[in-house]
């Protein structure tokens, strides 16, 4: 009985501490949302109120008609680049993971671990030469520059291979006996079996591309394909002191991600756990 009381007290203390921490985590977001619905005057008046005294949509209306920075265009650009990248990466990575996890050929594992060991090389070393390649390919200011280079990533292959290794040989063998070739086994058997891992890889590929800042900043120098992080950073300069507008833009930038998180939270958690616990 005494042990249970200790347990209960532990839970209560931990609940209180976590509540305090989570206030720190949540208040900045609420403060931003609140400012976006305030008038500019109220925003800079120095009030601590989270509920606007005078509720207005003026800042959002401004965003809709701003000709210099169309934030909805930036959202679309980011979505298009990240979406395309994700689809292509799923194809490329799942195929490679099939080779390294299901097929048997000489030097397979050596080759794979060689590949994995290159993950040690810091990405910064490739920045300038990759840019030089973009110039050669005439890929500056293009969608390809945002979509293609990242398709070489190893991380997703690593994760998918791990799953493929877990598929019992019997299943693959009996499919072969039934006359299926490897492309059929890959498409009809392995992909459906590894769906949870594919979802995780898709989410991480999407988020990494969506949030990329330095690379698009370097390879894009006009608005055609400008992505949300780059566009938002520029708006910080031009909206300068119009804080309520700037915060409305910030809220717009948070919305897609919030939806994604609400829909796929458990996959995010599963994905991080998988990568962190494998080592």
């Amino acid at each position, binding site marked *: 009985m005494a042990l249970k009381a200790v347990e209960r007290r532990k*839970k209560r203390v*931990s*609940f209180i501490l*976590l509540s305090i921490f989570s206030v*720190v*985590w949540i*208040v900045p977001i609420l*403060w*931003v949302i609140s400012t976006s619905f305030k008038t500019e005057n109220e*925003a800079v008046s*120095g009030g*601590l109120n989270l509920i606007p005294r005078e509720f207005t949509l003026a800042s959002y209306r401004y965003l809709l008609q701003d000709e210099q920075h169309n934030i909805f265009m930036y959202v679309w650009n980011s979505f298009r680049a990240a979406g395309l990248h994700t689809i292509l990466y799923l194809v*490329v990575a799942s*195929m*490679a993971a*099939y*080779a390294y996890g299901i*097929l048997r*050929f000489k030097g397979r594992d050596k080759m794979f671990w060689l590949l994995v060991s*290159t993950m040690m090389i*810091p*990405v*910064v*070393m*490739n*920045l*300038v*030469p*990759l*840019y*030089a*390649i973009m*110039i050669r390919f005439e890929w500056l200011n293009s969608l390809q520059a945002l979509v*293609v*280079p990242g398709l*070489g990533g190893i991380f997703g292959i690593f994760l998918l291979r791990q799953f493929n290794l877990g598929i019992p040989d019997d299943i693959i063998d009996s499919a072969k006996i039934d006359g299926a070739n490897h492309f059929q086994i*890959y498409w009809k058997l392995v992909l459906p079996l590894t769906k949870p891992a594919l979802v995780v890889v898709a989410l991480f590929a999407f988020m990494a591309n*969506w*949030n990329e*800042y*330095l690379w698009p900043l370097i390879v894009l120098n006009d608005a055609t394909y400008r992505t*949300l*992080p780059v*566009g*938002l*950073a520029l708006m*910080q300069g031009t909206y300068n002191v119009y*804080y309520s507008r700037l915060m409305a833009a*910030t809220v717009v*930038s*948070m919305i897609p991600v*919030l939806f994604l*998180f609400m829909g796929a*939270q458990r996959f995010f*958690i599963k994905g*991080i*756990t998988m990568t*962190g*616990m494998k*080592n």
Partner: protein
Amino acid sequence: MQTKQWDARSIASKLLPGAFFLPHLIIFFTFFIFPFFYGIVISTYNWNLFNPDLREFVGLDNFRRILIDSDSIYYRYFWNGLRNTFTFVVLSVPPLVITPFLLASLMNVEPKGYKVFRAIFYLPNLFSIATLVLIWRWVLNTNVGILNLTLAHVGIDNIPWLSQQPFAWVALVMMTVWWTIGGNMIIFTASLKEVPEHLYEASDIEGANTWQKMIYITLPSIRNQLIYITIMTTIASFNVFGQPQLATQGGPEESTTVLMMYIRNIAFGGGRPNPGVATAMAIVLGVIMIIISVVQVKIIKRMGD
């Protein structure tokens, strides 16, 4: 006929693995392996990216200029940038490892609504760097930001968070902790669950206190995850770019201009870009990162023995 058919099949089966891994491998070589070696070439040239005919071979001169030629402007950029990057790493890694460990420990007793807490702490992880900085520039606004307004109630006035040291470093570390601890927290939470309960029960019988339990049971049990988290966090901190670039613009007085900012400015900035020098800087930074990762693994492994 029979043998020929068999031959065709055997060739096909030899080529088969390639059909699956080549699409990735080609992209990987074009955009990762080739640039790696190409970078080494670029670093030995006075390079003009847009007009490669104008390049001039200079050997290791770019490295000499950044590492030892104290008259060179690049020498000053490099060492200032490296010092600032190191400062950020040293200031940010401990809180980026300890905070999520604490949160995970609290969550490990599974209080009411711990899944909601977990979601709250993880959420900022999904924001882009630009969103992060816009949020925090507004929170940290000197005159009307919520932090200073709150601090004013306890008699602390107008801290210039982003324009004066040491506040600028505090602000950058603070926003980075807020932004990124979610991932580490989830890994810690999962690894704490794996620590065998009977170890704690045994230590209860021996009368160990909370601190002793953490040192002798918890930390050794999660050693692998601790190594992973420490290394990944250190590497991420070495790559710091967006926070200072957008929040402090490298100021005050270039005291937060980290090496990545110099690399980017020298390679792609206005004036006279010098990709050769920028690449040399990137290579040195990369080598330092690799050495530090290896050393960290060694140290943490030895600590457990």
